[in-house]
């Protein structure tokens, strides 16, 4: 059904007149030109398309656009604050927590939602939270190290 859908996108208002059953992934990539969110499987399995909606990580390939009406959507393009990288982005760059980088947007969005809920997770908790984000390049160890390093910063900050 054609609908007029408004939401917050990376801190700014967004409005679209479109079929309301279209998936957020394709609206982002096609209509809104935000290509940082990736297609990896299209069926909610790989996590490459992860964005946050209302602070929670969701798979944009399985999220009809009508579900985000009135909500706050953050994509990888909105994770940094201006020129200041999110601590996770900084940590991923420093730890070399990527190779091809195709899973990276999804990893970062998934991890950022997780650390917001659980700022000081154990390594096991990081592993189990990230377990449904796939990385074919095998950057797993460095991804966990990077997330842990940010969690530790949380732990030591006053």
């Amino acid at each position: 059904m054609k609908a007029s859908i408004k939401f917050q996108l990376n801190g700014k208002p967004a409005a679209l007149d479109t079929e309301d059953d279209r998936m957020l992934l394709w609206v982002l990539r096609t209509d809104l030109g935000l290509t940082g969110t990736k297609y990896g499987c299209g069926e909610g399995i790989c996590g490459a398309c992860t964005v946050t909606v209302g602070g929670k990580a969701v798979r944009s390939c399985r999220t009809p656009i009508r579900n985000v009406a009135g909500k706050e959507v953050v994509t990888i393009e909105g994770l940094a604050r201006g020129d200041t990288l999110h601590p996770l982005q900084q940590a991923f760059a420093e730890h070399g927590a990527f190779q091809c980088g195709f899973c990276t947007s999804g990893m970062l969005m998934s991890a950022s939602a997780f650390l917001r809920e659980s700022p000081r997770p154990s390594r096991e908790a990081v592993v189990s939270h990230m377990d449904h984000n796939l990385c074919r390049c095998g950057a797993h160890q460095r991804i966990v190290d990077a997330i842990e390093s940010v969690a530790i910063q949380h732990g030591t900050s006053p």
Partner: protein
Amino acid sequence: MVVLVSMTPEFLLADEGKRLYPEDFNAYLVIGENGRVTVFSGKIEMGQGALTSQAQMVAEELGVQLASIDMVLGDTDRCPWDMGTFGSLTTRMFGPALRAASAQARLVLMTLAGERLGVPLERLVVRDGLVSVAGEPNRSVSYAELSRGARITRVVDRKAVLRAAADFNVMGTSPQRLDALEKVTGTARYAADIRLPGMLYARVLRPPMHGAARLTLDTSAAEGLAGVTVVARDDLVAVLHADPESAAKALELVRATWRQSAATPDPDTIFDHLIAKAAGFTEVAASGDTVVAQASAVQSFETTFQKGYVAHAALETHAALADFRDGRMTVWASTQTPFPARAGIATALGLSEANVRVITPLLGGGFGGKSAFGQAVEAARLAQIVRVPVQVAWTRAEEFFNDTFDPAAIVKITSGVDRAGKVLAWDYRVYAAGSRGTTLSYAIPNIRIRSAGKNSDAPGATTTDLHPFAVGPWRGPGANMNVFAAESQIDIMAAALKVDPLEFRIRNLTDARMIRVLKAAARVFGWPTVAKGGGRGYGLACCIDAGTYVATMAEVKVDAATGRIAVVRIVCAQDMGIVVNPEGARMQIEGGLMMGLGYALSEELQFRGGEILDRNFDSYELPRFSAAPRIEAMLVPNNELAPQGGGEPAIITTGAVLANAVFDAAGVRLLRLPMLPDRVLKAIAAKGSAPTGAHSADPTHQVRADASRAARIPSA
């Protein structure tokens, strides 16, 4: 300024005497009047770090800061010709050419500076793009100033000398990857991210199985959808739309009937099929007399190993955007082989290669799978027909269907040991995997190595009619299977002789470099390990690949109730000569080992004849975070040797190191990869019911011993 560097013939020839890098009209590097250096290379970035490592090589040899370099990779209009990015060749084969070009450019610039400053070359030093007189820092001239104005046509009549490892400033260091910022901010562009005004998204009709022939086609319902363009050629049926989801809906409305293919093999019957269909053997290596030697062996071992088909499964599916304008086709493609892709597109379109340009953005993984460029040809053909830019981006199901899989393969080994516990004879036959990785590290006097069912080990050879679908190079092609088999067989012999597997290997090695690498791994791992129990076990494997020596040790835990194998820890030591970027090299080792867990433990393509049953990652299980062991990647220093390959060697050891560790943990020898839980359980059950000493499951494994002689074998 443009520096055109003619390469000396040694850089133009590959090992086999094939032309590798032609003298090319494209420049390797350009120095701008602003001092920035643009480097042109046919070697693309697919995650392996070639963007950064190539820039490091140029910065080192040219004498400029890394930050002053801009890389242009895989653009056929602008970069020197290249066969493609595979085979761990970038640093090993292209590296010398790139370094030589940069060093030659430095020599040209220093010669010019010497004339400008009125001093002989010998008195000049270069730092960060500034040439100055030694000891007189005020007398200097920058590359930017030198490059201002005239284009340099001068040819220097002497050959630049590459910098020695001891003097490296940039090579041998691990700066942050040049693609880090764009990859963590989502601004990195991959082929499917390129947008052009008016572009259409195409979805291509696929047959239900390989080998099926189309009988009827009805596109009328799809044509009824607003905004849909239908293209129907004999071999290419596609629907196009300005919105990718609408294109997908239109494809669902296309009706076609197919004549089924007759192929019948499945993942269990494929091995007999391959052995029956593989044509005669090619002799890969032979020395001594294996038949005579075998007869005098005190103990003989005959083993058959198997491995199924494995998908590349890069997270980025094949994608391309094609734009046809003024008779010229430009294609942005996720490809490991931009120049062969240009040739393939030109042929398919009836254009000259000069009228085709392939531009390679960043790749979301390749692993050999993007040596095939079918999507680029599809996009180009469609753009030529519809005359607007066309994107073809395969779905995950298409990616599984169109993949050029790592072939299923079989290895049969018969080997024998003498009474000193040394391997005396090695008779090796491989089917379908090819011969890469069959060269032995060990000093065995009588060997015969034969390969069947693979016509060519040449990269880019993608299909043989042996298989029910396309196969092709897969990270460490052939070597994954061959090293799994050979290094398992070595362990089988060590275990039968009750000799520690490290000790047994060293006893049979004369290659000091390999012994050094094994000992380095052993030191860090703590081999031999004693603390066992609770299903824990330890394994090792080693090999030589792409000029690199690698030794890997692993600790696993086998759950005898479920058959699940947990990999606890892996130590991998690698001697790869001079290391351009140590962190980058470690990332390749870690990534290779992680990826290797897949073919070793969980990945095996499901198919029925030509029908691919795996369509997504729900059934096809990639290694996940929860499967990740602690990995310690260590580089064994060796600055005597030019840089060797690093993308593949580590992954090649994964199958054997885990199979050997599983044997140590559970006393069962897994001869077929992947070591799925039910296969482990079956092997454990077979061990329980078998007479003492025999400990093997499928496929076949026999130990024949002459008891009287075997008794005299000394143990370590």
